[in-house]
């Protein structure tokens, strides 16, 4: 009840700010004093027109799904590609007859990189548009802000980005990597003989929840592996930090004598200034390789990569993965962008979160067909343990913890903004929402337990 009231007031506040900002759609709603017509207009404008044309299933009502990615503001840089790839998956499915003979009708909304707006748009999708499932979010803070909405209304969210873990929601399927599927294996690789046997670790990140939690886990792991505390440095910068002179100077000192590496969770537009300064101060990838968790092909697309060549990244998928279905996926995506006149057209690339967003749609489709219904509770059960031949190889949804079993790949950045895969895990890595290093006593299970539970 208390929860409800709080939600209510914050909701009202949102409305006021929206009005001040002059968001036309929103204001219209207020004037009309109702939200009933919210979806139809948006859907008709942005919906998948291709799907409409083929209308042999027109007699059956289409299934509505929501797409909740920022199309403007600071996060648009990353999230627009996710919208594109989800729409492509929808088009593919619709052209093959849809789900259970019904077309999918996407409802695209723009939360504009505004965390509060995420919750509001999620509410709109669930209550007004009554979508069966939502694909969306990128940043952890946006996910945290929509979480109560999904849990309260028993919605279903597919979240496609690698994240810091420590979460186990019944209403979210995490198709990106948990920390033990990206950061932990990356550091293990750096410590291995093959990865250079590094002994000193400089943990550098942007100051928010993902880097902080990831580095907390990594520090615990390094200490558990008997790395002396003096060989671990941790440092954070504000968002949009541009001046990396001092930090690179510190890294240079730290790296003297060899055996050092940098673990970077630097986000967004701070990456270019960092790598540039790193190269300009005479440091090379051989002196201290930078292992990044937030730099993928899509971010490298427009960057001047000369300063990044030879540095590393850890993901579960790269565009360069050599499988037939990936070649098809990449070609399809380029063709899709060209056909729909999206910016950069054929020059677009695919990357890890895009792959995760893409196969998320198919996992949901499979589950709906298995359950014979779009009802959230039935679909959820059908997702457990389901498998799919994703572009990067076969993946498997976990039997109980709502995360995804995926392979882990370490890649080296090449001049053309692609990655050369230098190491890959044996088989799929089982996801651990609660890290064994920081929360050894906690587990996540929605089959035998109610979500997060205490291990005995």
């Amino acid at each position: 009840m208390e929860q409800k009231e709080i939600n209510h007031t914050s909701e009202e506040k949102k409305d006021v700010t929206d009005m001040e900002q002059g968001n036309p759609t929103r204001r219209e709603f207020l004037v009309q004093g109702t939200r009933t017509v919210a979806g139809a207009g948006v859907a008709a404008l942005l919906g998948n027109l291709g799907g409409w044309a083929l209308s042999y299933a027109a007699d059956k009502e289409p299934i509505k799904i929501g797409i909740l990615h920022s199309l403007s503001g600071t996060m648009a840089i990353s999230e627009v590609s996710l919208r594109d790839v989800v729409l492509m998956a929808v088009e593919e499915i619709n052209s093959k007859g849809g789900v259970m003979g019904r077309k999918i009708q996407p409802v695209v909304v723009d939360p504009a990189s505004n965390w509060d707006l995420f919750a509001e748009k999620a509410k709109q999708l669930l209550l007004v548009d009554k979508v069966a499932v939502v694909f969306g979010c990128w940043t952890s803070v946006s996910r945290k802000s929509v979480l109560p909405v999904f849990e309260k209304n028993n919605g279903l969210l597919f979240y496609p980005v690698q994240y810091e873990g420590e979460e186990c929601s019944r209403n979210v399927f995490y198709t990106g990597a948990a920390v033990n599927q990206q950061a932990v294996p990356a550091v293990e690789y750096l410590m291995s003989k093959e990865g250079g046997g590094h002994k000193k670790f400089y943990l550098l990140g942007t100051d928010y929840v993902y880097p902080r939690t990831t580095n907390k886990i990594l520090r615990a792991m390094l200490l558990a592996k008997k790395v002396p505390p003096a060989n671990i440095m941790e440092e954070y910068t504000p968002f949009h930090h541009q001046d990396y002179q001092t930090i690179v100077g510190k890294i240079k000192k730290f790296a003297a004598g060899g055996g050092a590496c940098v673990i970077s969770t630097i986000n967004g537009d701070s990456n270019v200034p960092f790598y540039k300064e790193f190269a300009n101060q005479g440091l090379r990838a051989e002196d201290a390789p930078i292992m990044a968790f937030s730099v993928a092909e899509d971010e490298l697309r427009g960057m001047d990569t000369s300063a990044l060549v030879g540095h590393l990244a850890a993901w579960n998928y790269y565009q360069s993965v050599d499988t037939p279905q990936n070649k098809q996926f990449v070609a399809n995506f380029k063709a899709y962008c060209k056909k729909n006149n999206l910016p950069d057209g054929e020059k677009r690339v695919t990357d890890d979160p895009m792959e995760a967003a893409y196969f998320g749609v198919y996992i949901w489709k499979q589950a709906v067909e298995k359950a014979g219904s779009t009802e959230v509770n039935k679909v959820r059960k059908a997702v457990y343990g389901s498998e799919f031949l994703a572009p990067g190889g076969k993946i498997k949804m976990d039997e109980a913890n709502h995360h995804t079993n995926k392979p882990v790949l370490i890649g080296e950045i090449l001049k053309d903004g692609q990655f050369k895969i230098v190491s890959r895990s044996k088989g799929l890595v089982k996801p651990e929402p609660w890290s064994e290093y920081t929360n050894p006593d906690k587990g996540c299970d929605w089959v035998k337990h109610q979500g997060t539970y205490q291990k005995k």
Partner: protein
Amino acid sequence: MLCGTEQAIGAEGPRGTAAAPPLSLIEKALADLAAGDPAKQDAAVQTLIEQGDPSLLPKLEEIRGNSDRAVRLAIKPAIDLLRNRANLASAESDRRRSAATDLGSLGRPAAIPWLEDALTRESNRWVRHTIEESIALIKLASDDPTTKISAVAKLGELRSQNAVPALKDLIQQAAPEAQPTDQQKAMAQAARSAVERIEVWASWANAFETIFRGISLSSILLIMSLGLAIVFGLMGVINMAHGELMMIGAYATFVTQECFKAYLPAGAFDYYFLAAMPVSFLVVALCGLILEATVIRFLYGRPLETMLATWGVSLVLIQAARVYFGDLTSVVAPSWLSGGAQVMVGVYLPYNRLFIITLSILCVAGIYFLLFRTGVGLRVRAVMQNRDMSSCLGIPTRTVDAYTFAFGSGLAGLAGCALTLIGNVEPGLGQNYIVDSFMVVVTGGVGKLTGTIVASLGIGGLNKLLEPSFGAVYGKVLILVLVILFLQRRPSGLFTIKGRHAES
């Protein structure tokens, strides 16, 4: 020692000729490797390193490509060493230097003769330094006490930061509880003095670097704020779209670069930046002129409305850039602006930062010349000080306003162009800098260029002084707190305009 080296070289024969080692041995080693027998691998790699030369590289790569992980791991040192040996003879000094560093950190004694050979031919001061350092680092790991102690002394002399961990180990070995031998004690003594020497040097280098970083950050703040100092400081227009004018400057640079790529021969590409500076200045000045004529001139003397209107303009410009250019565009720094100049051991001054420092000094000089040494400047100052009186005296105040605003905008464009050397080009670029720019201008005192210069030096320098001890996040917070406290005590900033104008 020298004698031994000569022998080694002699035995090997001149580089690249096949006259040297018995072929059969190498062939046997290669066969052993390819067979993948773990027992023979190490010996085979050892033979390859000692007897082989870079001409073997293609064969080794072939074996590496065809074999499993264990063989790849075993063969890696041989490949690394031989490749670096080949690179020691490279024509580029960066390559040679990088090879020397790698040989030093690989720590194989077999590399010593190669390095010594390279040293005799090397003319570049810093490559020589690196080669000497690498030789000494490898020798430091030897078992022979005399070699070792001379290496310790040499490393101290070279001020080698890279040697500090190894030297500290030596000191540790001689700790009283380990019951060291006399030899170890002597070694520790030598190591201690070497470490001391290195660290004294490092603290000087650090002080020098901090000063440079402060100046560099100040120059960036200054070049960002100059345009604002004129538009806001002199004209009193609060232009919220100033950051977006910088962004337009950055995109103008990008477009110039793309044009050079598309229409001019590849050799000309390195000079695109010289063309981009006037282009971005003029393009943005033109934008400023349009902005002034269509929005701002109707709002002179109404700061709140100006603020809202220009903020709207800034949103439009951001979204327009996003729609037209997409989110990601990059400017590739020309080769003469990437990398850095090494001025002392361990201290690099990046060329892009040196360039921005020079550019901001030139801009300041240019502005002073224009405002205080030309007739146009005289009129500008007259209008800014007393508009009505100037008007009475026949100065066309409208025109003066327009081109003052255009000039201030052009400076923002130039700043945007310079900023492409540091960061990336994206629609939100201006938003990152606008707050800092206003902070500098307000702290310096509105209406005084000297204030802007002093404030950017102060804020930049202070930031770099605070950052090492407080970290980037708290450094920034502290700067803001200090600025707020300062403005509490002196609301009109560092330098104030005295006289009647101040009250108006």
